[in-house]
């Protein structure tokens, strides 16, 4: 047994943490929100220069050919700073989908992603949309809400053919048959952007069909759960650190608030939850990496711990800050809202709890 990341992997994470810590600051997040930009293009460009979009794209297609473990670590770092870029959908979801679907179109998309010239929105197959594919692979209908849909270059979505067969489609979004908009309603998490699309005879490419699509989507779900768990872990860890730092600075009744047991034990509880969530996330990473038959159980464990822990850390971070925590200036809200967003992305807690219990015989 060797249940840890390798030194090389940890070095990658350290570099990523340093880079993101310096570039993706809270000030930058606030500027991003104020700018009304779709996503932080400058930051994404820097990630492209670091080769991140192509991290797990095979070398033959122009990527770095690294594996899912590296992706886990990067997800944690991105979660830590809440980077407003379509990393999750493009890198964590689309790349493996395309790789597993295979074929010329998929390969060329992978090459574009690795080259940093393509961002992808992925419609969560559980979300209950029903799109039907007409003749000539043309798509009609509406789709919302999907993260980054209004600004991505390509959409991956599951639709059904007239006879009910499931198909995985890629849709170039910049075409006359697609009308898009950024959802005007306020989005819970102000540093992510969500879009809606309307398709009118939109041209698509079928990447996979039938049983394969079902299998791909199943795998996508489990994979998403594990990688999101790392994002949640990163968020929880930095929320906890932020609360700790504040509790050392703030004095009431002549003492640091971090000296009161109410605060000490609260933060110890958060820290314990993080340690357990980290351990479950690592197990999920291992199961994903080895394609273990344990994966469904491991993914559900990672997801449930991740959601619970990030929620706890975000709520209590705000609480430790007192009144200041409630202001836009204090940054606690970034975690508070993101925690809720991640809780309902890729299936809510009830669904994962049910699946987890299923796995216990």
């Amino acid at each position, binding site marked *: 047994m060797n249940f840890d990341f390798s030194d090389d992997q940890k070095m990658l994470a350290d570099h990523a943490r340093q880079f993101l810590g310096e570039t993706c600051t809270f000030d930058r997040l606030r500027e991003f929100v104020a700018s009304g930009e779709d996503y932080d293009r400058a930051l994404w460009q820097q990630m492209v220069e670091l080769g991140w979009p192509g991290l797990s794209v095979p070398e033959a297609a122009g990527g770095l050919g690294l594996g899912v473990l590296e992706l886990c670590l990067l997800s944690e770092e991105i979660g830590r700073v809440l980077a407003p870029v379509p990393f999750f959908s493009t890198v964590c979801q689309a790349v493996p989908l395309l790789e597993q679907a295979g074929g010329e179109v998929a390969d060329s998309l992978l090459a574009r992603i690795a080259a940093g010239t393509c961002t992808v929105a992925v419609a*969560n197959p559980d*979300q209950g949309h029903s799109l039907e594919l007409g003749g000539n692979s043309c798509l009609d209908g509406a789709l919302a*809400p999907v993260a980054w849909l209004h600004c991505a270059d390509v959409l991956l979505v599951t639709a059904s053919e007239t006879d009910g067969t499931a198909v995985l489609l890629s849709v170039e979004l910049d075409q006359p048959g697609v009308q898009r908009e950024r*959802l005007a*309603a*306020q*989005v*819970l*998490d*102000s540093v992510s952007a*969500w879009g809606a699309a309307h398709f009118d005879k939109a041209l698509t490419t079928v990447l996979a069909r039938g049983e394969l699509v079902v299998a791909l989507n199943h795998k996508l779900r489990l994979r998403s759960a594990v990688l999101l768990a790392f994002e949640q872990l990163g968020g929880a860890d930095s929320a906890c650190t932020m609360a700790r730092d504040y509790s050392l600075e703030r*004095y*009431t*009744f*002549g*003492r640091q608030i971090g000296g*009161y047991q*109410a*605060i000490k034990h*609260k933060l110890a509880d958060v820290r314990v939850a993080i340690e357990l969530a980290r351990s479950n996330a690592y197990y999920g990473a291992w199961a994903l990496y080895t394609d273990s038959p344990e994966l469904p159980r491991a993914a559900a464990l990672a997801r449930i711990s991740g959601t619970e822990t990030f*929620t706890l850390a975000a*709520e209590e971070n*705000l*609480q430790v800050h*007192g*009144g200041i*925590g*409630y*202001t*836009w*200036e204090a940054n*606690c*809200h970034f975690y*508070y*809202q993101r925690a*809720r*967003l991640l*809780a*309902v*992305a890729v299936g*809510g*807690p*009830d*669904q994962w709890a*049910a699946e987890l219990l299923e796995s216990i015989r």
Partner: protein
Amino acid sequence: MNPQELNDWLATARNWLQEQAPDYSGKARQGLTMDEDLALGRRWQALKSDAGYACITLPRQYDGGGGTEMQKILFEAEEKTWDLPNTYFGISLGMPVPMLLRYGSEAVKDELLPKAIRGEHIWCQLFSEPAAGSDLAALTLKATRDGDGWRLNGQKLWTSWAQYSDWGIIVTRSDPTVPKHAGLTYFYLDMKSEGVEVRTIRKLAGESEINEVFFNNVYVPDSQRMGEVGGGFKVAIETLMVERYAVSDEACGGISAERFIDIAARARIGSRPALEDGEVRRLLADTLVERQGLRSIHRRAMEAIAAGHEPGPEGAIRKLLIAKRRLLLGAAAMDLMGPDALLYDSSAAQSNDPVNAWIEAPPIRIAGGTDEILRNTIAEKVLRLPQDHRPDKGVPFNQL
């Protein structure tokens, strides 16, 4: 009032609400800016005052209702079933106004109380500062003698509705050479005085009610002092004890158990209505059990107040539980809504919309006594456990 009279009175009040409230609530408020909503709220206060339903326990001579604590509780419970623009007056009528009633001169009461009760004036509470929240007695805003009055210099923080306020109650440091609790003095003041500057703080979502207020040599006549020079802490505590009882809405402004049932009946978990789900039912059962318990505590406390006793520390229990419950119910309802919960309308009523109920829940665990401070209160006042170690005790403020 005997029970029969009380029942009749309530039936009349209910009818009155049914007739009047629709024009001031729900649809009537949709799409309004904060300014427009406030204007509507002022009209509602005036209407209530005319009918004797505003500040029911305050004397009729000041345009209050001249009624009993029981009537107030019953009316407010009824009123809470409508989504009315009352929030702007919560602090104003909850703390400063009862304090003015206790400490103001007859002439001042005649002049100011009706205006506040009718919603023409709003009062704010200028207690907290950047370095004085839970530890209120750590405040530093300076009051120095100037002839027949005082000059105020310094900063207040978190002052709800200061941007709309006409008057405020304020705690100041009048003597930094004595231990921190002993050097405070309490005033009321005109917010339009020269030297008062209000800056609104952006909060984590939605339009903001919280402000920073700066004081630059603001003059306050000594006649506006409430309590003794150096006795301000006692008056401040008196104010806060009233506040802990002012929260009378059992959903704490968030979604009620009934609203949650409504949402759960429409949502699905797997193939079944969420309301049939065991887990959801348990949460509901817990909520209802807690609510019933709190009702009893609340009623007992209110009766004590009505009988002229001081409110006890049980108020802390109530606030602690309802604030946390609001967070729980909001989050649970959002889980049921799935991705739909990601998009929300920050102007939707918090009592109706789970997302808003949830987003606006955290400050309730902080304002008016944080969860941790309330637990300390329960431990010390109810269970009689010793106080935490306090290095600031007995030390002159300027030597801390």
